[in-house]
Every structure is written in structure tokens, then in C-alpha cells.
């Protein structure tokens, strides 16, 4: 007779299988990124240094966010990138040296811009769901009010019997 598996054990096994599946996919993504970065190092160290230090908030958001969808990473990353990109552009089309990269990294304006933008990104990420929730709630309430008004009109036209099931 096969051993009866408890419900708790079954749930654990399902979670583990899911993690292994998704973990496999995440493992491949991490590998690709690391390979790209590793390939960039011999050819563009200054870029890597500037991006590496300037986009630290993005890295942090990616690491701290749980779940399959990395919305915080995208939001913070997008704003962070917007803050870093002008300097990155001037590095690429200006002096593309390591010294220049370090000089930019020690520039407080640059750091404030990059990290400030990422902060704005965090702010947007934190503030957007409540705003959306308020909007949806208001919209639902408006819908309910409209429906109740329509019902009232039906009662005026047809009497209370209209509210009974036919």
C-alpha cells in the first residue's frame, strides 16, 4: 500500500517544484547579464564603472523585489537610467577614460542626479498604486450611484413590483 502523503507535504513539494522551475529561468537570465557585463569589461571599463556605481539603486531594487514581475526594478531603473544617461552619453562622446568615469562618480551633482532620479522612481512606485486604487474606488462608486439612480427611475416608472424577481 502506498504511503499516504499529507496535505502539508504535498503543498511543500508543489512550492519547491515551482521554485525550481522559475529558478531555472531566473538562473539563465542572471547568467546572460553577467556574461554581457563580463564581455563589456575589457572593451568599456569606464562605462561599466559609471553604470555600475550610478545604477546601484536599480540593482538594489532588483535584488529587493520579490515575485516574478520586477515592476520596481523597471520603474526605479528607468528613472535611474534617465539620471545617469546624460553623463554616460558625454562619457561615450567625450572623454571615454577611466579617470573621467571616476571624476564623474566623484561629482556630487552627477550622484545627486542619478540617485535623485532613482529616488523619484521609488516615489512613483510607492505612490502610484494608492492613486490607482483611489481612482478605481471613485469610479466604482460613481457606477454604483448611476445604477441606483437607474433603479430609482425604474421604480418611479413601474412601481415597487419591478424590484421583485419575475
Amino acid at each position, binding site marked *: 500500500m502506498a504511503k499516504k502523503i499529507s496535505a502539508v507535504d504535498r503543498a511543500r513539494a508543489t512550492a519547491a517544484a515551482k521554485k525550481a522551475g522559475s529558478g531555472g529561468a531566473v538562473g539563465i537570465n542572471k547568467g546572460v547579464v553577467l556574461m554581457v557585463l563580463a564581455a563589456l569589461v575589457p572593451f568599456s571599463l569606464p562605462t561599466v564603472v559609471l553604470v555600475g556605481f550610478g545604477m546601484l539603486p536599480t540593482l538594489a531594487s532588483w535584488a529587493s523585489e520579490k515575485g516574478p514581475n520586477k515592476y520596481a526594478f523597471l520603474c526605479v531603473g528607468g528613472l535611474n537610467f534617465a539620471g545617469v544617461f546624460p553623463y554616460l552619453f558625454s562619457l561615450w562622446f567625450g572623454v571615454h577614460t577611466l579617470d573621467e568615469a571616476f571624476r564623474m562618480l566623484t561629482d556630487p551633482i552627477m550622484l545627486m542626479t542619478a540617485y535623485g532620479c532613482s529616488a523619484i522612481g521609488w516615489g512613483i512606485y510607492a505612490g502610484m498604486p494608492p492613486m490607482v486604487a483611489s481612482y478605481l474606488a471613485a469610479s466604482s462608486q460613481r457606477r454604483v450611484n448611476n445604477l441606483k439612480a437607474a433603479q430609482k427611475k*425604474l421604480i418611479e416608472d*413601474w412601481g415597487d413590483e419591478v424590484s421583485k424577481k419575475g
Partner: protein
Amino acid sequence: MSEIDEAEVEIDPAEDGDGDDVKVEVVKQTGPPGVLRDRYTIRSNQPLPELSTPSADAFVAEDKRDPSRALFGLICKPELPPRVNAMRALKGVSTPGLMQLVEWGPMNWPPAGRQCMTVVYERPAGNRVMTSARSDVPRIDEYQITKRVIEPLTAALKEMDSRGVPHRSIRPTNLFYADSNGERLAFGDCVSAPPAFDQPVLFETVESGMCTPIARGSGNHTEDFYSLGVTVAFLILGRNPVAGLSDDVILGMKIQQGSYNMLIGDERLPLPIIELLRGLLCDDGEQRWDAEDLDLWLSGRRMSPLQPRGEKRAARGFPFMGKEYFNGRELSQAMSKNWDQAIPPVVEGKLELWLRRAVEDKDKANVVAEVVRMALNSTTDKKSSTDLMLCKVLILLDQAAPIRYKGFNAMPDGFGSALAAVMASRGDTRLLTEIILREVPRLWFEMRGEYQPDNSLMESNFKELRSYLSQTGMGYGLERCLYELNDALPCQSSLLGEEYVVEVKELLPALNVAASKRTDGKQIPVDRHIAAFLGARMRSDIDRNLTALSDPNQSVAMMGALNLFAVLQYRLGPESLPGLAAWVGVMISPIVQGFHGREKRRELEKEVPRLVRKGSVVEIYNLLENAEERVRDEQEFAFAQAQYAAAEEEIKHIITETEERATEADKIGRQTAAVTGIIVAMITASIVVISAVF
């Protein structure tokens, strides 16, 4: 007050110059007179007791077109159904031996405060022949009886027979001297009461005498000739030969001795008169003389007087209630009067034994035994099965007798009058109802032996009555039986007030008048009596309406009633009935409420008052009964209900799924933030590149 108060005449004795008494009229104030058909004035302050009948009071009547004409009016008692068909048939008939009926009809009678049926007659020139059954009467000898009595009265009877109306009130106290010389006699009133209602048992045949007076039925001319025979006997003898005897004793003597022997006994009479009286007083209806025999006698034919064929006398008497009875007729009469005491000897087989041994009628004994056996083995209620058993046994003992059941004795065509009288006096109708439901008349018809076509028709009528009685809805029940049995009875509905409605065309005008006097604002103008009256008069034409009237849905019931009134107004008029239309307005509320749409209701409620003022029930009905509108209203209402339900469902969905929405909002918010970040990044990169290029 539209008329000057009439004066009541009082006689005040005074003396003239010669010392003779004269009568002086003293005028007193009383109520107004009644006016019949806008022509005949009936003076309520001038009664004529000498012309009154037991069921109708007589008053002086005047013809507006001919004030010199000597007339009098009889006011019929409201609780008794008068003979309206006879009134119709006899109106204007002028024949020597009959008081002429001038006019008849319902009339508002102020002393009674209601409408009463009234009959106007020509005043006879002479007085009543006999003022009471106990008084003496001038003898008319054999030489004069023919010319003064037989000829005119026979002519009158023939005239009435030709019109299909038997008199049924022939007695000396209802005979008048038709001329001032007293040469000719004439019959008095016969229409103001049910047939034979006022007749003492003495003047009725044995069978009719057995009946309850109200239920003697129309009968036919043979009963009239019998009554004539008794009347002639009185006139020949100059007195009542059985004065002082009770009705029961008289009937018993007739059964035992025969009518002729009871009345004439040992009186010595001329042979022609004996022949006449034996013929007229024959207790066997088939042998009794009729008009043809009288004509032959009047023309001088003389034959041997009829000898009565009595029932075979039993070898020994049947003891019952302390007496012994020697034939079936006597015994059955005694048993019918002592119903509960009659059952045991029948059940115990004593009657069967008596029939077998004393009467020596084995066939009858066998039938009685079978009837008793079936009753005892019956699965129905014991009391009812023994009652029916006794009823059958009484019919077997005397097949010519009327229907006899628990003390109620009736001819089949007298049932209607009995029912009308009981219902008018608000009496107990249970016995009559029981008779119909238990099909007692059918037993009577089946067990009489000989087939008669008239009986077949009556039997099917009673079968129909039973089916009506079994249905309790409006237009059926005992009320329907009442109007089916009495085709000239006015509608007894209290909604009509004092209006007198005999024909359907009179109903709406009567309701129109009664509408203004109604006290109950919510009562609709239809009740059981009106529905039954219409059902009986209009028959299957309104079956559908009667079904609708009994529908538990108020809207359907009221629509049925409205349809009925609309049809009546359309077919019979009048065009305008504002009173009734206003009354109908009470009814339409459930009909209007039958529409769901409030707009439609408002529209109808606005339109109806205009039609009420117009007095057109037809248009009110057409307004409310629109099948297309109803269907559309129903469909739109169903749609509105669906809309309401869908909205309710959606509201519930929105309210109950708040948590899910919060989760959804969070997800959408984060997605929106992510997209915003990406867009900002792209815009920034684009601006940097473009600004670098340009």
C-alpha cells in the same frame, strides 16, 4: 313633495232631513298615491277590503284617460312571487265569466316604501258571492245554475285554457256577481299570488291538497274543473257542507270517502246535477270532466254518473301512530306527516309484510323490500339513505301524490314558488337545497311509472339545477336555481334598492337609479343575485363572464363584470348611464392596477372620468380592455424587471469585491509605475541624443 298629499276618506255618520243616515266624507292627510304606467292612479287612502284577496290588498284605481271607469288595483305582497306570465296572458281579455284584467306592472307604492307588483281590474258590478267560507250563500237551483254559473264560468275556463293559463283560484269566496242583477257570476283574481296559494284544501284535488300551499304548482285545467265542481256544490247546497272541519280532516275524508261523497253525502240532488258533480269531483284526474264533457252536458247529453274507483282496501289495517290505515294513499299521507316515526316500520319490514299479506300486492311488496335493502346496504350517511328510502316508499304507496320529503310536499312545478317565498323571507333553504342535491324529483319522476313528455322536460331541468347548485361561483348556487325556476321573478338583489327588475333590459337602468342611493362606496354593482339573474336569463351567452366573475384575481373578476355591463348597454341600451358609469368607476381600480406602467395608469385615470360623465360603460370597457396594450405593458415590465435585477447584481458585485479590486489596483499601480519609469528613460535618452545631434 311632487304631488299633493292624498286624502284619506273617513265615513262620518250624519242625518239628512228625513232622518236617514248619510255618509259624510272627512278628509285626512296621508301619503301620495301610486301611479302605474303613468296612467292608473291607485289611491292608498281608499282601500277596498271587500275586493281584497288573502294575498293582495285592494284600493280604488282611476284611469287618467277615463276617470269614470270603475277600476280597482290589487297590491301584491312583495314576499310572494305573483303569476306574471298569467298577467301577460290575461291582460285585456274580455270574457263573461272572468273579471277583466286591465293593466299590471311594478309600481312605486308609498305605504310600503318600495316597488310592488300591481294589478288593475274592472270593478265587478255586484258583490262577492260568498264573503267567507263559513258564511251562507244564496242557493242557486238546478234551473238557474247552468245559465248563471256553468256557462259563463266554463267559457272563462276555456278562454284561459286557450291561453295556456289555468285559474287555480276558483272558490265561492273568489266569485263575483258580474252584473247588478246577480244574473251572472265571474271569477275573481288569480294572478296576485302563486297558483292555488290562497285555496283552502277543500277546493283542491286530493293531490294538490297534500301539497304545501306555496308549492302546489301551476297545475292545469283539470284542477280548475275540480275546484269548479266544489264551488258548484256550494252554490247548489247554499252552504259549506264541511264547515268547521280542519284541512287534515277534510283531506282524510276525501281520501277515505271520495270528494263527492264527502261534499254531497246523502243530499238528494237532481240527476243531471249528480252527473255534473260526479264528473267534476272525480278524484281520478284522468276520468275527471273537462271542457268537452261540460259542453256535452250543457248541450243536454246525459249519461250515467261516474262511479269512483277507490283504491283496494286491505284485509287488515296497518297500525301507525295509534290509528289503522287500510290503503296506501291514507297510509302514505299519514307517514309523510310523521316522517321520523315512519322510518322504523318500513326498515323493520312491517310495511312489506302488510303489502304482501293484507293488500296482496306482491309486486309492490318486492319493490319496497328492494328499496329497503338498498338503503340499508348503502355506503352513504344512514340518515340520508333512510330519508330517500322513505321518499321512494311513499311514492310507491301513492304514485299520484306530490313529491313528499321530510314534511315538504310539492308538485315539481311548485318548487320554484316555494324557493322564491323562502328566499324572500330569508327562511331556511337547507331542506330545498337537500331536495335538489339528493335528486328527489328524479326519484319521483322515475317511480311514477307512466311517461309524460312534460315530466321529461322538468326532470332535465332539475338535473340542470343540481349542477348549478354544485357550483359555488357567482352566477350559480341556489340563487341561480331561484331564477331558473321562476322565469318572471324580479331580481332579488339588495343593490337594486326598490327597483323592480324582471327583464334583463331593465337591469342597467335600475342600477343607474340605484347608484345614487348606494351607501357602501366600495360595493361593486354585481352580487350573487344579479349574476344569477343574468345567468338564468341570458344562459350560455355569459358563461365566460360568470367564470371571470369568480376568478380570485380581482382584476380579472372586475373585467368580467365590466364586460358584462358593456355588452348589456351595447345590446339593450340606454346610451347614457352616468350613475352606473360612476359606480363602475369603483370597480376599475383593480383593472387599472393591472397595468404595471405608472404612466399608463395615469393616462387611464385621466380618461375614465370623462367617460363616466358621458355615461358610457361601453367606452370605459373599450378603454381598459386593450389586448395589445396589455401585452406591451407586460413585455416592457418584464424588461424593466430584468434591468433592475441586472443593476442589482452589478451593485452587489461592485460592493462585495472590494478586496479583489484593491489587489487589482495595486497591481495596476505598479505596472503603471514601471511603464512610467520606462517612458521617462526613453524620453530622457531621446532628448539627450537629439540635443547632442542638433
